[in-house]
């Protein structure tokens, strides 16, 4: 059926409010950030100096701190993708098996994600504190006093410690999404497989995993995007230190924007960072499609 001009126009009018909102709150800010990234500007002065792609060139070729921060973020993301999501899947799988008090576990596992990152950071600061922290206290009382340290201030453990806090805070999201995915798998498939003599591992590998691929892709993308943009936990625990050991791209951007008054430069960082995240997500989606097909 071919719609008349009037109908098409009317239909478009319905979409207009959403389109305008999208333009104002998504497209315009992105356009503005890109525009600012081409300038040298402190965010206050009336004078802005056009520098073309010089900010981008400097970040990509000379800014060692930026690449260290990026490497740190990738490292935390890798741990979140593997350890955090494996834990989330294990717990979701356990709760899906209708264990006793499953609903209570659901609530408990979902508490960390709803807590503020700053609050979580402060709580874990007490745990990891070097002089009177809970972890050191526990280690000492177990006779492992030699292992005690300032976990968040020691370059050997600072990044792992931050990653641990992030995973503790984040696994609940994966857990809820994976559990929803698991509960969508028809029970009959499991029952018929078991009737055919399939063991637990076989059922998991041949039924659960293939049907969960789209959910895995979703959880992975959310994990990557969420972890790469980690900020509040870092600020409330290490502030990016000691040295550059726990710096991440977001802390670099904020430091340059607010601490150094280099707003244009920080905008260029955010454009590069946004593009890299987009690429990560596209690769992940392609991989998911390929696995799904396979």
């Amino acid at each position: 059926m071919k719609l008349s001009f009037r109908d098409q126009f009317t239909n478009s009018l319905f979409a207009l409010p959403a389109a305008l909102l999208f333009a104002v709150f998504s497209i315009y800010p992105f356009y503005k950030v890109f525009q600012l990234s081409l300038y040298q500007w402190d965010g206050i002065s009336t004078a802005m100096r056009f520098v073309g792609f010089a900010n981008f060139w400097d970040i990509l070729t000379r800014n060692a701190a930026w690449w260290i921060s990026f490497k740190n973020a990738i490292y935390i993301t890798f741990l979140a993708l593997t350890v955090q999501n494996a834990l989330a899947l294990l717990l979701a799988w356990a709760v899906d098996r209708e264990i006793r008090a499953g609903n209570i576990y659901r609530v408990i596992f979902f508490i960390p994600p709803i807590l503020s990152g700053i609050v979580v950071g402060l709580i874990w600061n007490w745990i990891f504190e070097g002089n009177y922290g809970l972890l050191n206290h526990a280690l000492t009382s177990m006779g492992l006093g030699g292992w005690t340290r300032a976990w968040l201030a020691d370059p050997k453990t600072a990044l792992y410690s931050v990653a641990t806090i992030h995973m503790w805070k984040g696994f609940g999201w994966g857990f809820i999404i994976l559990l929803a995915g698991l509960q969508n798998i028809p029970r009959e498939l499991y029952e018929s497989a078991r009737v055919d003599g399939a063991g637990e591992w076989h059922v998991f590998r041949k039924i659960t995993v293939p049907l969960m691929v789209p959910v895995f892709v979703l959880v992975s993308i959310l994990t990557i995007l969420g972890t790469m943009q980690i900020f509040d936990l870092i600020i409330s625990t290490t502030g990016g230190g000691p040295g550059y050991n726990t710096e991440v791209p977001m802390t670099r951007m904020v430091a340059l924007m607010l601490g150094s008054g280099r707003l244009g430069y920080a905008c260029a960082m955010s454009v590069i960072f946004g593009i890299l995240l987009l690429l990560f997500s596209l690769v992940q989606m392609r991989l998911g499609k390929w696995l799904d097909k396979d």
Partner: protein
Amino acid sequence: MKKVLSLSFCLALASVFSILPACKKASQSGAAEDSLVVWHWMSDREDAFNNLAKKYGEQKGMKVRFELYAPSEAYMQKVRAAAQTNTLPEIYGVLGESRDFASFVNAGHVENLTPAMSENNNQWMNRFFQKALVNNQFPEGNSYNVPAGIYGVPLDVTNIQMLYNKDLFKQAGLDPERPPQTWDEFLKIGPALKKAGIPGFVSGWGELWMIDCLASNLAFNLMGEEKVLKTLKGEVPYTDPEWKRLFKLFEEFRDSGLPAAGLVTMVNKTAEQNFSSGRAAMAFNGSWCVNVYAGMNPNLNYGAFLPPAVSDKNPRVIWGGAGSSFVVNARAAQKDKAVAFLKWLSDKDQQVALAKETRNLPSTPDAIGEIPAVLGQFADDMELTTHPSRFPVSEASSVVETFNKGIQSILIGEKTAEQVSNEVQKVKEIEMKSAQK
């Protein structure tokens, strides 16, 4: 048909994009004609400010509304956003470095108060500690190209010194009435405290500026002001033996066992909690700590002392000057009334009230009356203060960051003094090349 609709959609977007920047030209932040709005970040002074506002209303018939936005980071973001949209209130404060302050002045957001300060033979100007005004002043020929003048009104003054817990010193067998005077004496305290099982030194060194502060104090003492300023100008490299010696001091500090665990990522609030609760014997903190410690532990028995001398060739200096300052919005319709209010706020009665309420050092000497003894120690050393905002040249932020992060790396044993010295110089050279371009 589709092309027509797509074109219309694009036109709609284009008009949105052209309208949005115009929205920036919003009207001035709206205080009524007989009222003033003051933005601040000082949560500890909220009640004192409101009481003073009430008093001003009663005396002058002008309503003043203090609006608190805390913490300071959130406050500064709000001020920046308001500056970009021209919606700043009549009176506000600029936090940050001189560079930030200069940007606000150059963008026309800050009124030059020199004419008002100079009226009647500098009557208003002469009320303040000279060092308090310097932080709010841009001298002739400053590197930020700000027209020379006074742009802010100091509310209080502050300086940053070493503090020690007298009871813990006694417990460790140290003389509680004789804090260390030299660097060697300072380092020797480490083993004594360690033996007594007392964590040594805390400070907010996770916030990089506090590292910069002590390092700068030591540098001035070690090589003198002239050489430090020559380094900022690029005439002396950071690889100079005296700069290497400065970085080496932090190696010695680390090896003395003085730093409490976690010092390099500690925020000042945590350091204040640790010191006030007797979980550290020494701290490096500003005079505002007197108020903070009184709130955390009124029975804390402590004293203040200057950072230990590393050389007897040059005088010891400490960072200090104006603590908190207010500026007048140059675009405000009621800027004259705002200036009049700030004049009133710096009168003796108001300064005494503020000092009494907040235990901060008043910005006018005539208001220093009965202050706590330890605050008196801070007050006595006001003449030794300096601050980067008073230097005729400023260091590039990337160099400052590499310098401070480098000291963090020395303290955790990740890098040597030699490495840090080379790294800082490398960044300095890059910045100098960029500046030449």
